[in-house]
């Protein structure tokens, strides 16, 4: 029953779960820190050295806060919302190749929980159902700000999913596979997809901002207009779940971007350094996380650089710029593939 | 196939013509495109090509019906020039939708794969759902849209389930393969296939508004803008019937015993319901809707004689019906505009107000009633003789009795035209409008005198 493979998988799952949560936790910290730095401040620095224990303090605070469920809300759905958000946020990590396989005692263990032959679509599917958490929560709150936030979230996510999908299609055209493992493997060394699909990358990353509800597309929760958006009525750990989900989403989005466009666990000269395969694999994992951290940083960087869009601007950007651009990208890719194949 | 291409491009062209400030541009583009579509369509005559892995089989049948639909739409588009009823959607979009719908119609007459049938129906219908609701602030139009949409989608589901069951038995969506399977099964047709076939009948019966799937028709026809109604009752009906016929003539000719009784009953029911209900209508538009149902019933009579290939009769009937209906609706549009009502009473005194219109109305309704020397007569004649030949005398007798009921309500309009009315201001007509009326009326008579022109086609 408990084959080494299974044990390894369980270990992998648990560790990825843990890492995800830790990264999400520290993303909150990172966000505050980076925001501070960009604004010439220091950020949290009281809990622990450099405020390193701040996330723990926040977590404790979240748990200690009073649980409030509005009287006129739909109780079941009100609780279901953050759970869904959290679940869908965590689901994607299952198919990301965190590294190439490592060899333990003569057996190869893949550093990927499962390799779907349609992995890219899986990511897409999970993203697309991610919106339910927000919608249900926003609607169940029975609060107009929440509802507006939920509606904004849904239309924003649906709109940008299209451009995102189209960008991915161009990528798939050039890689010829939907499996994330194969996509990663094909980018060995420095053959990163970003050099093949610069435009696609641009579209994809813009869309991931919208999909994760990050600034400058954080309209569903924009404080100046909607108080807290879809989570206005939430408090305590349910609010924590929503916030957490957002950071997990950001982490996963960074991981996906790294995997799809930036070579995943690959790094330049990985095969020329004469290292053992295990060493390469471990280095690869480190490189992947380096890329991920860069993108998490990038997310925050953008957040503190660009002001929030207006709602109509957001929609116009999505429908009249990104989607045509993505279609153009597909055509371009097709033309290039056609030209190079002949 | 080329026609499909031209129509798709035409749809886009019409859509983009909306950017121009010239309001007539869309009409001109559409007319040219339709003429082009008709031409390229006719050029394929007698070639019978199978396109794209046999998705489309463009034989003479397909070409003939495509031609009919293109020409009918040409007339309808021409009516747009002088169209007065307020449609709250710009012409460009309307034409684009009409073109897409027509493209769906073309697929419906030339499919040889059930997938194309399904897609064709949807491409035909979805623009229509929109067009039906194109008087956006009018409640009746809204209602027409939602009813058409809901019931249309409902029927599509039935159609789909039928296709699925047939696929389950025959492992193919191709109508030739289905026919071959049935032939090879030597009379042991699986029940699942028969069930699928009946689901198809239900689904397609809805599209051609056969009773008891006709409930949407009057409301939709009445609620939609008149010009859209014209399109629905001519082009759409042509496509629906042609698709229906093609399916049963190509895929199920080997098990006629299974479905002919059903269709015969359906036909009888449809024409009876259509005609009898039409008698009680005071709105001409609604009456024409019921008459459309009745005509669908007559057309279903053709199916009982499917073994003797009544395709040409169906074609002729549809042409006759389309010509007369376009003519009738053209008049109705004028009446609606001048009197603001679509009731039979609105026609009163028309012979005084405009003898020309009175004459055109007469021709149109005589043709609809099926009285010689108009096309409507021969249309019925061919169908009835086919049915008698196939031994369905009872069906023919019902049809004949129904024709008489039909005459009753069609002549009520004609009678109203010649009775004295309160209003006596002369009616003004646009040139193009007039031209369309003349063309349709002349065609209605000409085809009645020389039916061979059409009958010899197929």
């Amino acid at each position, binding site marked *: 029953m408990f084959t080494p493979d299974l044990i390894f998988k369980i270990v992998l799952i648990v560790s990825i779960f843990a890492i995800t949560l830790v990264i999400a936790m520290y993303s909150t910290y990172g966000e505050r820190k*980076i925001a*501070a*730095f*960009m*604004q*010439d*401040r*220091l950020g949290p*620095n009281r809990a622990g050295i450099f405020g390193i224990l701040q996330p723990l303090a926040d977590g404790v605070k979240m748990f200690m806060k009073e649980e409030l469920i509005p009287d006129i809300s739909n109780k079941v759905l009100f609780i279901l919302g953050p759970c869904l958000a959290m679940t869908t946020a965590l689901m994607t990590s299952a198919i990301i190749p965190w590294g190439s396989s490592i060899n333990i005692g003569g057996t190869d263990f893949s550093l990927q929980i499962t390799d779907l032959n349609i992995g890219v679509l899986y990511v897409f599917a999970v993203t697309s159902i991610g919106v339910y958490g927000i919608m249900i929560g926003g609607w169940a709150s029975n609060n107009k700000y929440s509802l507006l936030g939920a509606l904004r979230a849904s239309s924003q996510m649906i709109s940008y999913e299209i451009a995102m999908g189209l960008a991915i299609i161009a990528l798939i055209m050039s890689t010829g596979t939907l499996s994330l493992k194969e996509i990663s493997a094909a980018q060995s060394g420095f053959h990163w997809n970003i050099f093949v699909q610069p435009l696609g990358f641009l579209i994809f990353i813009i869309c991931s901002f919208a999909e994760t509800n990050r600034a400058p597309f954080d309209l569903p929760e924009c404080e100046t207009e909607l108080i807290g958006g879809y989570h206005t009525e939430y408090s305590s750990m349910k609010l924590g779940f929503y916030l957490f989900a957002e950071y997990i989403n950001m982490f996963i989005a960074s991981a996906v971007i790294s995997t799809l466009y930036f070579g995943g666990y690959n790094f330049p000269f990985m095969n020329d350094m004469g290292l053992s395969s295990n060493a390469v694999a471990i280095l690869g994992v480190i490189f992947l996380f380096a890329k991920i951290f860069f993108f998490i940083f990038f997310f925050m*960087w*953008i957040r*503190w*650089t*660009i002001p929030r869009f207006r709602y109509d601007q957001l929609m116009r950007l999505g429908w009249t710029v990104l989607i045509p651009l993505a279609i153009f990208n597909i055509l371009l890719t097709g033309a290039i593939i056609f030209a190079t194949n002949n | 196939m080329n026609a499909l291409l031209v129509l798709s491009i035409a749809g886009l062209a019409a859509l983009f013509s909306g950017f121009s400030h010239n309001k007539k541009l869309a009409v001109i583009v559409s007319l040219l495109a339709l003429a082009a579509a008709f031409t390229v369509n006719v050029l394929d005559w007698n070639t019978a090509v199978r396109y794209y892995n046999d998705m489309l089989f463009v034989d003479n049948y397909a070409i003939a019906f495509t031609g009919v639909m293109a020409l009918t739409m040409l007339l309808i588009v021409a009516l747009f020039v002088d169209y007065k009823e307020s449609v709250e959607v710009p012409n460009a979009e309307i034409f684009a939708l009409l073109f897409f719908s027509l493209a769906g119609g073309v697929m419906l007459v030339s499919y040889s794969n059930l997938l194309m049938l399904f897609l064709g129906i949807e491409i035909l219908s979805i623009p229509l759902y929109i067009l039906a609701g194109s008087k956006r602030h009018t409640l009746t139009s809204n209602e027409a849209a939602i009813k058409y949409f809901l019931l249309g989608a409902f029927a599509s589901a039935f159609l789909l389930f039928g296709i699925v069951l047939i696929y389950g038995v025959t492992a193919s969506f191709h109508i030739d393969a289905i026919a071959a399977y049935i032939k090879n099964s030597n009379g042991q047709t699986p029940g699942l296939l028969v069930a699928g076939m009946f689901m198809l009948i239900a689904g397609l019966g809805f599209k051609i508004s056969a009773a008891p799937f006709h409930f949407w028709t009057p409301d939709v026809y009445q609620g939609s803008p008149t010009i859209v109604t014209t399109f629905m009752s001519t082009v759409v009906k042509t496509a629906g019937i042609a698709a229906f016929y093609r399916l049963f003539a190509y895929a199920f000719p080997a098990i006629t015993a299974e479905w002919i009784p059903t269709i015969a009953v359906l036909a009888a029911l449809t024409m009876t319901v259509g005609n009898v209900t039409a008698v009680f209508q005071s709105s001409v538009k609604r009456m024409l809707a019921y008459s459309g149902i009745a005509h669908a019933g007559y057309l279903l009579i053709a199916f009982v004689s499917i073994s003797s290939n009544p395709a040409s009769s169906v074609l002729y009937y549809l042409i006759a019906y389309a010509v007369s209906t376009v003519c009738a609706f053209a008049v109705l549009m004028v009446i609606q505009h001048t009197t603001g009502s679509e009731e039979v009473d609105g026609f009163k005194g028309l012979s005084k107000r405009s003898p020309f219109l009175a004459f055109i109305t007469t021709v149109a309704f005589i043709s609809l009633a099926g009285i010689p020397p108009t096309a409507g007569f021969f249309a019925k004649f061919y169908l009835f003789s086919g049915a008698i030949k196939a031994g369905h005398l009872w069906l023919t007798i019902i049809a004949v009795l129904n024709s008489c009921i039909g005459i009753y309500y069609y002549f009520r309009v004609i009678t109203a035209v010649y009775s004295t009315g309160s209003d006596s201001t002369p009616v003004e007509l646009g040139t193009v409008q007039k031209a369309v009326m003349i063309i349709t009326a002349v065609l209605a008579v000409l085809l009645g005198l020389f039916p061979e022109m059409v009958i010899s086609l197929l």
Partner: protein
Amino acid sequence: MQSLTNRKKVVGKKEMTWVEKLYIPAILGGMRITLKHMFSKKTTISYPEQTREFSQIYRGMHVLKRDEKGAERCTACGLCAVACPAEAITMVAAERKKGEENLYREEKYAAVYEINMLRCIFCGDCEDACPKESIFLTDRIVPSDFERNEFVYGKDKLVETLENPIDISKRQTPEVLEFKKNKKLTHNR
């Protein structure tokens, strides 16, 4: 209107060029700026541990000085209260009793001396007005508090203690002293 400062920048509503419409250069520019700030010196001061370097002429919380013998210099003449533009100062004068010579330098002294720190605008006019060189503004910060009436500082907070004399020399630069000599230059009026 003629610009007086010549600092204004005219931003015309000119049509953006193709490159500008892409916004990408602008975004990159913005990102460059934020990134630059990331590595620039932080302006935060960890306040309780660190304190900010005060300017030499900083005018902070007041102090009522004592003379060399430790007696209060204030004679409750009221000039400071008169000079105060914010009317933040009030006092009640009293006569020195026997045996209090070591406490009050003059025969009259301020039994109550209050400054409302919420009103005070720290202009320094009181300091200028004081003929006895009793009141000075120092580089101390008025601490925060929870109640409004806590901000009405009495002598308990204002008068320096013997054990802990307040150094006022920092502000009394030669320039300030020179300025003070020329009392006619009442800069606030």
